[in-house]
């Protein structure tokens, strides 16, 4: 997947930046870091969604009924499925992170510093948690494995656009940009980009006017600007946490309603 990203997206970005600054190995590294940040945020969603196949299979085969007649709360059953997805999502994301680091180093970049690595891992865990709750909510509306396959295809496709991974946010029309900025999962992409690219952006845009760097950050979804105001990273964290709480509550209510 990294190779596909590199082939289709890397050159487009490098060409665009070359118009304002010189193409250097640091530039390639920066673009690669942008790519892997998007890839990792998407993987958090797709891997956890895959883990929810068990929940759908249990529902379709009525295996859930066996748990529902046991003296455990509906919330516990729900949380078990989320926990399962979270653990699987974490494992895959960490493996993917190692793969991404190998890719960056093999293309001339440097390993993340220890503090940046801790930050990236923290954001990844948060992303996986958000994705687990988000997918649990989606799966509540699916009752067959066929429908689940369709859902997975749709999520996998739409996600790339809604997180500004396939196409940079800046090239989209205004309403699409707003849609992305209001989409909570895209904030995990933004946070990962910031964590990954902090030093490489400084290196690449070191000798050019600050407005070029700001323009790049806006166009490539490294910062969001909503209604003329820049969305701070703290706001992104808050959006993610509120979404987790809201979706978890909604999911438990819906699951309880569906399963007495």
């Amino acid at each position: 997947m990294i190779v596909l990203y590199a082939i289709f997206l890397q050159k487009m970005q490098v060409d665009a930046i070359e118009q304002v600054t010189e193409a250097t190995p640091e530039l390639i590294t920066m673009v690669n870091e942008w790519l892997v940040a998007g890839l990792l945020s998407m993987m958090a969603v797709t891997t956890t969604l895959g883990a929810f196949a068990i929940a759908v299979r249990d529902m379709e085969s009525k295996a859930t009924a066996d748990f529902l007649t046991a003296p455990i709360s509906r919330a516990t059953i729900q949380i078990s499925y989320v926990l399962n997805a979270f653990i699987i999502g974490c494992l895959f994301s960490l493996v993917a992170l190692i793969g991404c680091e190998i890719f960056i180093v093999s293309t001339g970049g440097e390993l993340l510093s220890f503090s940046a690595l801790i930050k990236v891992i923290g954001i990844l865990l948060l992303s996986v948690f958000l994705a687990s709750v988000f997918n649990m909510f989606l799966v509540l509306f699916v009752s067959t494995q066929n429908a689940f396959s369709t859902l997975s295809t749709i999520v996998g496709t739409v996600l790339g656009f809604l997180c500004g991974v396939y196409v940079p946010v800046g090239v989209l029309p205004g309403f699409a940009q707003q849609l992305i900025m209001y989409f909570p999962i895209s904030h995990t992409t933004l946070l990962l980009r910031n964590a990954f690219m902090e030093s490489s952006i400084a290196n690449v845009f070191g000798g050019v006017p600050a407005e070029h760097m700001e323009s790049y950050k806006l166009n490539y979804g490294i910062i969001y600007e909503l209604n003329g105001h820049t969305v701070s990273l703290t706001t992104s964290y808050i959006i993610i946490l509120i979404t987790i709480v809201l979706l978890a509550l909604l999911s438990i209510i819906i699951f309880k309603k569906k399963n007495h």
Partner: protein
Amino acid sequence: MTFAIQVDHLQKHYGEHLAVRGISFKVEQGSLFAFLGANGAGKSTTIEILCTLLQKSSGTVTINGYTLDDKSHNAKIRKSIGVVFQQSLLDERLTVRENILHRGKTYGLSKAQLTKNYQFVSTYLHLDDIELQKYGTLSGGQKRRADIARALIHRPQILFLDEPTTGLDPQTRQFVWQAIKQLQAETNMTVFLTTHYMEEAAVAHQVIVLKQGRIVAEGTPDALKTKYAYDQMALVFHDRSLGLKWLKENTLPYTEKLGIFYVRVSSTLTALTLLKSAEPLLASFEVMKGTMDDVFIHIMAQGDGTNGSND
């Protein structure tokens, strides 16, 4: 008399469609209760309500003294019941032992209690030969034994069996029933059964027949057989014309198939009297007792003109 289950005017509707139409019944503690009905009669809906899987629309249900749908009571009801579903629902990749112990943990049992209970159910259901096998590799009959063991691991007071022997060979069915009856006799457990095999219902203490969401017959198997079934003689005469003459003289209605005359009688004693008088004319005979099959077919054949229902 103590009742394990008390159902009063239970109703369940899906939108405007009434699946269960105000049924009431009581199940005596320690009894084997058979709940019969054709597909779509409302059996599964009722069982799902009793097992806390489905919310009732109205009516009251008490299980082991706990009121269904009372928030604090539902967990207690779940602790006191075991359910064997129509489908096999354990994890295909775990062994029988792992499956049963894993599900047992959901009842909050200590490790020691769980091991003790496992030994108990294993003895009754002869799990020794399959306990280390993966559930997915078992035959239908072996899976059923594991399913029943899973339902019993917390030693419930009521065991719900939703068509437990469907698809099993006669030998396995017999084994399953022996185990259940032995357990019931020794532990005073109440068994609530739905089945399509009428011979299984024939050994129940009480039977209810459901049709289109309503109870259309209830009582002991004997009482139902007396009311809805009939005994029958199958007679083969040495001489057909003499046989016909005897039937006419005794004003006995009959049907004839392949030279065999089928004659309904009110009881086996009546049959005995008639057979004595016909003895010189008979080449062979058979007296057939009324069965639960007859009861079921008779009841199902009675139309009541109401709408169908979900099951």
